[in-house]
């Protein structure tokens, strides 16, 4: 790193607790979910189902708070997708990073996500996670389908979609965890998500369009 570093407060307390709570829930859901699917034996089917249901419903409810937070704070604007600088970010991760180049889109309080993150997190928060919660909720409420007039749905279909989403989430997890090591130090991003403070190069200016208030 060439430049002088400065600390900026990037993630609020709610954001961080939500992140780790969600991480914890998703981890539990993955572990118990794959057990319920019969991939291995750990807690036993009965306990696995019970934990999965409890955590799943908790996730659903707490996700509603997250959505509320997103819209009341205006943070949703951080998720607006863009193609600008997308290619340079991609180029950075497949090439520049090996040459020790600077990240083309540095972080700022009002521009937390680079274009690649924006598209990833938007698909995650708006598509994949809701899809997983939706199919999970349907799976959970299987016995009411008849009364709700959706008795024609085969459980296998919902289970299939739920499983497919689970694999997608697991894949996200693998890459996401790795990506946290790509900061200016191995644990810089991780530390930021714990303390809220991220070290960034103070010389770099970010452009107005990248800010959420733009």
């Amino acid at each position, binding site marked *: 790193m060439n430049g002088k570093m400065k600390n900026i407060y990037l993630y609020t307390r709610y954001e961080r*607790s939500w992140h780790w709570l969600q991480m*914890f829930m998703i981890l539990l859901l993955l572990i118990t979910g794959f057990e319920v699917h*019969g991939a291995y034996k750990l807690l036993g089917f009965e306990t696995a189902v019970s934990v999965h249901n*409890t955590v799943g419903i908790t996730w659903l409810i707490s996700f509603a708070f997250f959505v509320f937070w997103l819209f009341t704070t205006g943070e949703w604007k951080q998720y607006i997708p863009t193609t600008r600088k997308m290619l340079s970010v991609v180029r950075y991760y497949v090439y520049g990073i090996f040459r020790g180049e600077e990240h083309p889109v540095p972080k700022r309080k009002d521009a937390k996500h680079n274009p690649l993150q924006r598209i990833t997190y938007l698909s995650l928060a708006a598509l994949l996670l809701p899809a997983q919660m939706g199919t999970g909720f349907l799976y959970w409420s299987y016995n009411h389908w008849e009364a709700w007039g959706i008795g024609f749905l085969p*459980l*296998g279909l919902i*289970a299939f979609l739920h*499983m497919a989403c*689970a694999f997608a989430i697991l894949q996200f997890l693998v890459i996401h965890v790795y990506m946290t090591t790509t900061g200016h130090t191995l644990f810089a991003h991780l530390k930021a998500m*714990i303390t809220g403070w991220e070290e960034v190069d103070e010389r770099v200016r970010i452009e107005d369009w990248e800010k959420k208030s733009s």
Partner: protein
Amino acid sequence: MKKDTEKIFLSTIILVLFVFLSSAGFSAEAEQPALEDSPGMVMAQQAEKGKTTWSTTDHSKHKILNQDFTSGSDITKACLSCHSEADDQIHKTVHWTWLAGEPVNGKQYGKGADSVNNFCISANNMNDKGCVSCHIGWSGKDDQINCLVCHGQNNVKWKETFDDLTYFHKEGDPESLEMAQELQGELRKAVVSIARPTRQNCGSCHFYGGGGDGVKHGDLDSSLTKPSKNLDVHMGIDGKDFACTRCHTTELHNISGRIYTAPAYTDRKSLLENDQASRITCESCHGSRPHKSGLKENDHTDRVACQSCHIPEFARVNPTKMKWDWSKAGKTKDGKPYTTEDQYGQHNYMSIKGEMKWEKNVKPQYYWYNGSLRSLTTKDIIDPTKTVYVSKPTGKREEPNARIYPFKVHEGVQPYDKIHKTLLAPLLSGDDGFFTKMDFQLAFNKGMAFSGVPYSGQFDFVNTKYFFPTTHMVAPKSDVVSCNECHTRNNSRLANLTGFYMPGRDRFTLLCQVGWLIIALSAVGVLLHGAGRIFFSGKRKE
């Protein structure tokens, strides 16, 4: 300021983790509700309260019963002199007729007519004396009803006693008359010991179906005469000590619970919905959502019969017969019939019956079942190239009243007519019976003549199956079938039931393969990426 935030944040995380772990643990524990808490148990206990004797008569004080009886029909007449409608009622019941419903296409179902099984095969239209010994007439359908089979509390060998009486009276000497007097005393004692049927009464026939203890039903044998609570929570003498009629509600001598062509019940009403409802279903007393509220078990009751989980195994005390191979019958040792015994002391070979297999603690087999069995008669054409289902549960998953239900499946190898492609009904008892002569041709000729079905003279043997619904021997809560005995990939109890998705048992092979491949590729990808970063940063430093 920063430090404080950090502290607050970390403690929040720890608190959240703690709350989650404990709530997960709690809900896992909640799967085991206390007995008193489950509404099904509370309801059943309320329904069961106030069990007292409400009889208004003492049979020993009735003059008509204090007479010298010389025949069975004398006793019946005495009974009917007060219970004037009993014989009309009995004559209409299946216990008397041994017939199921009206004839269909010239076939009369029921063991008293055309129905066959894969044990002793047929009662030859009530002509097989061995089979008919279980009939409640003094001597078959042509005689009077023996009320004491079901209502008598003393075990009397009626025929012997009456024969002896006749003999002593004929002798006429003082000693013989004294003996006769003694026998009369015993008879009178037996005649006045009257009660509602006990397990012993019903069991005297139903425990011994197929010619021996536990032969036919895996969930009905002499171990239920005085069962422990462990064997049957309802009948256990250390528990509720229910008599059979406690659940087999009886109206005008019609005892509920018979399953044959027609189901034993068509609706599952609890006593709360209809206080005159038959108590033959579990739901009658326990309701349709008997488990503690919030438990997934309640969501199973619409598709899984209570018996499927609550009877983990049948024949838990005495062994039951699981296979009977008639084709091996007729072998002799030194020109004489012989028998051999298995580890339970049961016959696994008898020259007069063939080869048999007995088993204990048998896991049931599970099938969709709407309450009706489809069974074969001597008049049905079979396909001997395949296993023949002499009886089979009917019901499909799509039927709302069908449930997954546990069965004992008895395998048979039994004779059929090679030309007419019908199951053969040999005559077994009596002078010409197979048990006596060990001559199949003679037994088939006699037996089929009684059945009124032609026999070509050519026979062979065919593999068959016969199904018994399992409903007795309800185990204590601690022994129920656990979730993962069905919801498991390997050796699921429900492995044979297909056409629907079952969590834990079924998988999406392609999705899982592709899914795990993507995960593996992603992992390899990020590892390579990481290795590349380390490699190039090392190079840069050089």
